């Protein structure tokens, strides 16, 4: 069985900053379950100029009681593939879980583009697919749990991005008024 989810939202921040914030987004106060994030591969396509990145993210999971018999180790590995095209100002990211896939596979695609109504804003289109191959009548429950959890997590992910974007905005304001202080407050990240 499979469930689909689709959503469009926007950030009141320029596309450049939103894509930059995407790289910086862990850690943030809304993602305390993310314990590690690594770049597996990264290259710029010499022909198209597109930056392509593969990252591996480790999340410490929390399971509902009925799920604990299904999954021994709740840690989840997530693979994130992304493409940034600075020419067309398009960033596409695709994430999916690597383990626990028989219980549930969540695939999420996000597309970041310049907002059609305001060039200083960014539009984000989110599409997700939640699949479970479990039998014994558990699939419905797992997928309902999955979609609820997914929506909770989407809200948290959005808050996390907003938090990082606000920090970037403050740093930029600081840099304009006091460059040395801004340099000290710089926040390199994953």
């Amino acid at each position, binding site marked *: 069985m499979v469930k689909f989810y689709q959503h469009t939202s926007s950030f009141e921040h320029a596309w450049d900053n939103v*894509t930059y914030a995407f*790289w910086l987004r862990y850690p943030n106060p809304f993602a305390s379950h993310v314990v590690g*994030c*690594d770049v597996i591969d990264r290259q710029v396509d010499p022909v198209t100029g597109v930056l392509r990145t593969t990252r*591996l993210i*480790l999340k410490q999971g929390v399971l509902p009681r009925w799920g604990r018999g299904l999954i021994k180790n709740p840690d989840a590995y997530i693979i994130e593939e992304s493409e940034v095209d600075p020419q067309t100002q398009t960033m596409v990211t695709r994430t999916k879980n690597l383990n626990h896939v028989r219980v549930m596979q969540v695939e999420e695609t996000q597309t970041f583009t310049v907002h059609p109504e305001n060039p200083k804003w960014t539009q984000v289109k989110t599409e997700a697919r939640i699949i479970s191959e479990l039998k014994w009548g558990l699939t419905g429950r797992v997928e309902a749990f999955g979609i609820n959890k997914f929506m909770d997590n989407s809200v948290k992910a959005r808050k996390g991005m907003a938090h990082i974007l606000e920090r970037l905005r403050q740093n930029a304001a600081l840099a304009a008024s006091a460059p040395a202080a801004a340099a000290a407050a710089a926040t390199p990240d994953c």
Partner: protein
Amino acid sequence: MSSSIGEKCTQIKQEYDACFNSWYSEKFLKGDATPKCDDLFFKYKECLMKTLEEKKLDTLLADARKDNPFPNSAASSASSGSSSSESSK
């Protein structure tokens, strides 16, 4: 600042991240795609690959990456194993 999945790689990872972040915001987004952080990345990746082997994540990762994440056509979706085979309902 986020850590590496392999504890011993966190330091080199963060050095690489710092390099990438400045390259991305100051060069790449402004149209200059000349690589700048390759040396750091090779060192970081060397450490990371050992960790992935130790944690037996290398095969899991290789399998997952067989799927083309950005197919221009729907042609590759049929070969992605069992994950999509029950998508009719």
